[in-house]
């Protein structure tokens, strides 16, 4: 299994050049900052110089003393101050300015990710810097058995396939899986020619009876004393919100001990992209076309996870593959809850084919859906009520999300306003419901719209300038 590592990510669009990260780094490291924000091409653009902890670090290959080496566990290029002879050859190896001279000691200095908890990230007020831990997740789960066959025939860039494979790796072999009609069985998870596409028992219920069948299976396992099996569904939004809803609602109301994962791609995608109850207002689908008179769907989506929370299930949560750590946490809690009652996990799943998103932009779309509050991340238990796991404060306008998605290309200003109002209304409602529960980690402040014109020749050199000059 190849290596993957956690990384400090930089979102330039959020950076307003405040320089807090550099101040913090310089303080923590007692020397020059190892992260350098420099003025970019326009007045409000900023660029970053930092060690990228390369996979094949050229700094290390040109070092004559053996002072630099990539750590196999953390991926950090470590610097051994005893071995280093200060020749500075490493600065010739690096194309990013990631290892540079600290003038206070006339030695090289580089980012070490603060041992896995980078101070710069914590000090960034806008969220432009983020410590992404997908690498750790990959290392933890990458070696675990993939419980689907290779070569499922999902579309290029399919987010649902990602969700299935991740979820089952985490859940493991001790599961019985229902995959009602939809993309998930359609891409081959139920198998061909009498063989299943999974390495766990899988079956293909009707759209209408998934939750009922699972309830029966769980009761049988309870009867024979098998308490260790995860009885679960990977279902689409149609089978959950529309034609299967009565079964889901009934099972939830009865408190059946089931893990029900709804993979919401906002429509009946495998049969030709028809609208469903979770298709958002304004969306193009094949049954809500865009033409002279019709301009996409005219009704709002129902908020299924909120409806499930109203069932007082043992556990309800929303999740997105743009936020993997959050998704994995919620999977843990959902699995545990499914041995005690109904656990419902709603995972939003942008569909490159049906939504008209380039396949390489799907995860970007996931993240943007959350950053605009189009999707909110929260969880519910009867004891704690609803609790945001990511703050909905300081969200971007929904246009930032909508413009990434082809199915919204036709939207008029009126329709955009409608969507924004709907998003605001949903968030306001969730806020009321979440008022009693502990707050999520605070949101980042939005970038200052007009920062000091750092690119110009100001007479007062900023800290940024000092540091970047070495």
């Amino acid at each position, binding site marked *: 299994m190849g290596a993957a590592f956690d990384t400090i990510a930089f979102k330039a669009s959020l950076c307003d050049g405040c320089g807090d990260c550099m101040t913090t780094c310089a303080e923590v490291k007692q020397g020059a900052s190892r992260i350098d924000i*420099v003025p970019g091409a326009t007045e409000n653009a900023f660029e970053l110089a930092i060690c990228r902890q390369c996979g094949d670090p050229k700094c290390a290959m040109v070092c004559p003393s053996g002072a630099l080496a990539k750590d196999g566990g953390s991926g950090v290029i470590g610097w051994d101050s005893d071995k280093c002879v200060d020749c500075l050859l490493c600065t010739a190896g690096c194309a990013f300015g990631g290892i540079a001279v600290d003038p206070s000691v006339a030695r090289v200095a580089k980012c070490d990710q603060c041992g896995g908890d980078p101070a710069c990230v914590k000090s960034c007020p806008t969220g432009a810097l983020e410590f992404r831990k997908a690498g750790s997740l990959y290392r933890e789960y990458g070696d675990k058995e993939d419980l689907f066959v290779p070569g499922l025939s999902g579309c290029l860039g399919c987010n649902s396939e990602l969700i299935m494979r991740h979820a089952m790796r985490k859940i493991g072999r001790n599961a019985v899986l229902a995959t009602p009609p939809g993309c998930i069985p359609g891409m081959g998870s139920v198998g061909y020619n009498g063989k299943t596409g999974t390495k766990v028992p899988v079956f293909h219920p009707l759209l209408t009876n998934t939750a009922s069948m699972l309830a029966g299976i769980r009761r049988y396992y309870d009867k024979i004393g098998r308490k260790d099996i995860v009885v679960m569904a990977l279902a689409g939004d149609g089978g959950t919100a529309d034609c299967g809803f009565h079964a889901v609602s009934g099972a939830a109301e009865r408190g059946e001990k089931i893990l029900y994962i709804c993979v919401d791609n906002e429509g009946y995608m495998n049969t030709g992209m028809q609208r469903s109850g979770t298709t958002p207002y304004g969306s193009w689908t094949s049954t809500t076309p865009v033409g002279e008179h019709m301009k996409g769907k005219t009704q709002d989506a129902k908020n299924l996870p909120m409806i499930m929370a109203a069932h007082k299930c043992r556990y309800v949560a929303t999740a997105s593959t743009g936020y993997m750590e959050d998704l994995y946490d919620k999977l843990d809690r959902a699995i545990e809850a499914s041995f005690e009652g109904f656990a419902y996990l709603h995972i939003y799943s942008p569909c490159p084919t049906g939504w008209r998103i380039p396949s390489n932009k799907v995860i970007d779309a996931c993240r943007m859906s959350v950053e605009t509050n189009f999707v909110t991340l929260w969880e519910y238990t009867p004891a704690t009520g609803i609790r945001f796991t990511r703050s909905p404060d300081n969200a971007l306008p929904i246009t930032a999300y909508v413009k990434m998605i082809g199915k919204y290309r036709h939207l008029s200003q009126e329709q955009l306003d409608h969507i924004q109002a709907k998003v605001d209304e949903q968030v306001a409602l969730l806020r009321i419901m979440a008022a009693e529960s502990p707050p999520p980690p605070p949101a980042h402040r939005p970038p200052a719209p007009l920062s000091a014109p750092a690119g110009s020749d100001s007479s007062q050199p900023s800290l940024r300038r000092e540091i970047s000059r070495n």
Partner: protein
Amino acid sequence: MPDVKYLLVGSSHAALEALRSIRHFDPDGSMAMVTRDAQLPYSPTILPYVVSGRSKPDAVLLRDQAFFEANACAFVPNATATGLDAKARSVTLANGQSWRYQRLLIATGAAPAIPPVKGIETVRFHVLRSLDDAQGLRSAMGGSRHAVVLGAGLVGLHAAENMAEAGLSVSVVEMQSHVLPGYFDAKASERIEAAFTAHGVKLHLGCKVLAVEARDGGHSCAVHLEDGRVLQADLLLVATGVKPATDWLAGSGVQLDRGVLVDETMRTTVADVWAAGDVAQATDFHTGKPALIGIIPTAVEQGRIAGQGMAGDPYLKAYPGGIPINTYRFFGRVALSIGQAAARDGVEVSENEDDGYRRLVLSDNRLVGYASIDEPFDVGIMGELIRRKVDLSAVKDSFIARPVETGRRLMSEQWR
């Protein structure tokens, strides 16, 4: 006869990088690294620090035995190659053993070039290229008072500083009119020269050595200069340059010029034989002509390309040509240079002496060289600007005013 798919001769930067790039593509092909050294790999560049005592000889090794085991490569020390039979695909060693190969890398680096000075064969002198040399020089320093260094290149200056710091009286003789010729322009060199003078090192620049002569029963020697002066030395260090270590290739059919001739993917003129590093004569980025650029960054880059070619890696890219790079420390200070940093003709030069000294050389609004004293910059970033011939027209003013900041910005934009 031992038989391997990949045989690497030499165990320094070029060979190590070739190993890495072969393993990137071919994890299992049998491999051996044979080397003249008795030790695990180390870099010649570390030697001044062994001479000064800052680095302990056993703490400068670049790889351990476990590395070779993990990479399924046999490491064969004390194995000096003496001949290559390209038809039989075998390399003969001094101990009589032969190794057969399917693909061979010549990475034997360079050896000190001894100038044809009259009497040189009659006196005891030191060179600095191997750990043994370094340890020999270090112990000789202990019992000496007057040192003469021939050559004011990197090796000569490093050793001169070591010896001056150890309390010896040191003279450096250099034929050219400035130290580190080629890397720095006169203004930069003068700053370095002043530092040496301030530390008591006598520099004899623009000065030729006519002859050396043993004195004191061979315990010391006299160095006769062109201008008639005579320097007394109980320690003589010859550091007048290096020549590629190609002796063992005589008669092999591998075509040699000043070094082993290679094409743009480091192949020699003989099938299945590659060469990389100081031993190879590849091209110069600036002129496109064959050149010897004996520095670690070129050794590493050539090693990588050779390794890719040897392993059949389809991502092989042609060598763009070597760019001179010098990161030099003297008495704790910093001197850096990359590219055509000393060029004067047909280029646009911007010098700045506000803090330290920096000299930017542009041609057609593109960076072609950069040198500085006491004002560090990101050598790697400037190297990319030079290599990619990045058009700086749009940012020229800020680049000239704040080259480090602007360089970082440009590279961040490139790599977003």
